[in-house]
């Protein structure tokens, strides 16, 4: 029983990082219509920046905020210089983002080197409760994710900005006629999604080492999470992340361990076959139906 509960606890923290990248993708892809395959590299840059700042003596939590801001700025630059020119041609943007991901990988190798980077656990505590080991930093990652999810959810569903954004997705032309600066909103969404990737990278390096190639692995899971939940749906990304996290944790614990990645992708395929719009529905769902 201890082992089973331990697996559930493990799954939560991993699901958190996946949820963060999933929210970024679901906002950028689902609301702004940009397929940014370099989003995983944005996360990696956030992690590398955190490693650099912590290595220079900065407090981890300060570095986390700065990494988010840095990657947000990177997102702003990418949107202004690259993706704004591809809004009407998403395939161009997709291919461009693949190129950007390779460039970012090798820029990081050039600036630092190719080896994996890690930081000392910023908290360094393990709580043992009823035979279950709870790593304090993992609990913090879950808490930070919960706060970000709440802010994002209420921002999208309740604020004027969120309403305008959803109106832009439903009918862009009408939204523009009503005075909504759609282009500026797209830029804002891109920056916010990138900022979340930066924070995700900082949280990730507090748990696991990262390499310049970490982003290319995590991006697949990010897209899986956003599609499972429903593109553009923040709640959907949370559900998608939890589903994948639990499937990963329990399959690694009780299934064929070498197939761990396959189990979650099989679940993704099944969900998309049975519910093409995702579990909670999203912007793509409405168009598909």
């Amino acid at each position, binding site marked *: 029983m201890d*082992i089973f509960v*331990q*697996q559930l606890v*493990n*799954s939560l*923290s*991993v699901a958190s990082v996946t949820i963060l990248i999933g929210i970024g993708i679901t906002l950028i892809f689902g609301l702004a219509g940009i397929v940014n395959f370099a989003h995983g590299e944005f996360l990696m840059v956030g992690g590398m920046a955190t490693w650099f700042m912590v290595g220079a003596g900065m407090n981890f939590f300060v570095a986390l905020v700065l990494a988010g801001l840095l990657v947000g700025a990177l997102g702003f630059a990418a949107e202004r210089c690259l993706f704004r020119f591809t809004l009407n041609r998403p395939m161009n943007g997709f291919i461009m983002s693949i190129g950007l991901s390779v460039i970012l990988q*090798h820029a990081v*190798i050039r600036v630092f*080197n*190719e*080896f*994996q980077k*890690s930081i*000392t*656990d910023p908290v360094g505590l*393990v709580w043992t409760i009823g035979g279950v*080991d709870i*790593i304090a930093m993992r609990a913090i990652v879950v808490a930070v994710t919960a706060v970000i999810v709440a802010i994002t959810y209420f921002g999208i569903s309740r604020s004027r900005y969120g309403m305008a954004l959803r109106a832009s997705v439903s009918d862009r032309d009408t939204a523009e006629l009503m005075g909504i600066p759609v282009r500026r909103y797209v830029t804002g969404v891109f920056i916010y999604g990138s900022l979340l990737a930066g924070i995700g990278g900082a949280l*990730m390096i507090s*748990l*696991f*080492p*990262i*390499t310049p*190639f*970490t982003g290319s*692995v995590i991006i697949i899971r990010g897209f899986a999470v956003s599609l499972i939940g429903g593109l553009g749906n923040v709640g959907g990304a949370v559900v998608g992340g939890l589903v994948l996290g639990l499937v*990963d*944790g*329990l*399959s*690694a*614990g*009780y299934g064929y*361990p*070498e*197939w*761990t*990645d396959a189990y979650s992708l099989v679940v993704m395929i099944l969900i998309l076959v049975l519910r093409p719009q995702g579990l909670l529905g999203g912007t793509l769902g409405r168009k598909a139906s």
Partner: protein
Amino acid sequence: MRQLGLGLTMAAAGLAMALQTARADEELPIGVIAAQSGSFVSAGNTIVGAANLAAQQINDAGGIKVGDKTYKIKLYIRDNRTDVNVSIAAARELVNDIGVKAIWGTETHDFSVSMAKITGPAKVLQFSGNSSLGAVLDDKAVAEGGWLHYTFQSEPQEWQRSGSTAKGVLSLLTPQLKSPPKHSVVFVGNDATGQYLSSHYVKALEAEGQKVDLVQYPPDTTDFSPLLTRIKGMKPDIVHFWYNGDSTLTAFPQALKLGVAPSYFLFGVDPGIYQERSLKADVPVTMSCVPVCWGSSPYPEVKQYFDKYFGLGAAKGPQSSVSLLYYDYFFWYAKALEKVGKIDDPDAVVAELLKSDYKGVVSPVPLVFNKHHQVTFATEVCMVEPNTSDKFKCAVEQPPAAPPPGDNGG
């Protein structure tokens, strides 16, 4: 005046051509194929680093005297971008267009085998540091006319490495544990190399009396906690993190936090990296390097080598020691060329390499190729004292004389 000018121009052109020819005669083109980008870059860069250092040292020492000529090594380094197709294209270019006499590389079995299908028919020597080549280097393949006649494995056979490693790990850990270890879990990446290497290591541990469970993880895993929790439930005496140093460095701290086992073995993690990362465990931890650790050198020659290697700008990483799978063979090849007296007789060079030996940096005992073109040398295993990052006790274990029961040696 015009005729004088023309004559001088022709004379200058003739002199330039003669100088050019003389310079070309003195160049020994050698290819290096290694990942300088892509996911194998940390291993690939070590091959390039070793090649640059060896070529510089040979050239600075006056070059290679072959017959009445002196040759300077000119390296043609190609980035395989961690892509087998790029490796093949690079091998074709080096062999067919540039005409290299030998190729060093590359990081992984599949790529090296693909390259050998190009170097073999062209009679270009190939030095590859993949222990998994043992699966294909047999009597027929290395015979004259065989497709691997010109290929040499610069790393010991896997059953030898596994055997000496298992022996070293158990001999260092047993006195540290309350009771002799009986149950080992081998934790390994589920790719072609991981499957091949672990098949030998499991047999080697079983030969040492261990009950062994094998747990494989998908390559590129970063969160090992679910799998480690599963292993914890198996109640092992030792968890052996096998094969991929980078993955091990990710998984090991997670294992410590979850308290998975009373002792660990980290394959491919150098004591230097353990120290640099300030890793600490409250239980005994052993580690070994491929082939010799830079962070705790057993021999003065190894320390001098790594001082020079890092002095050239190579990064300190878990795989830096892999460079020693490539370095010595430049000097051995040069020695063979000098003995043969020609650079255009690859059959004679192969024969000379097979009958000669070379005392290199990687081993205090001279290196010798066996009939399957494979070398043998010992493995260094180190143990770090609990709750320290820099107090190591190291032992050099000789390989067993024969493969363990159930291991066909290939």
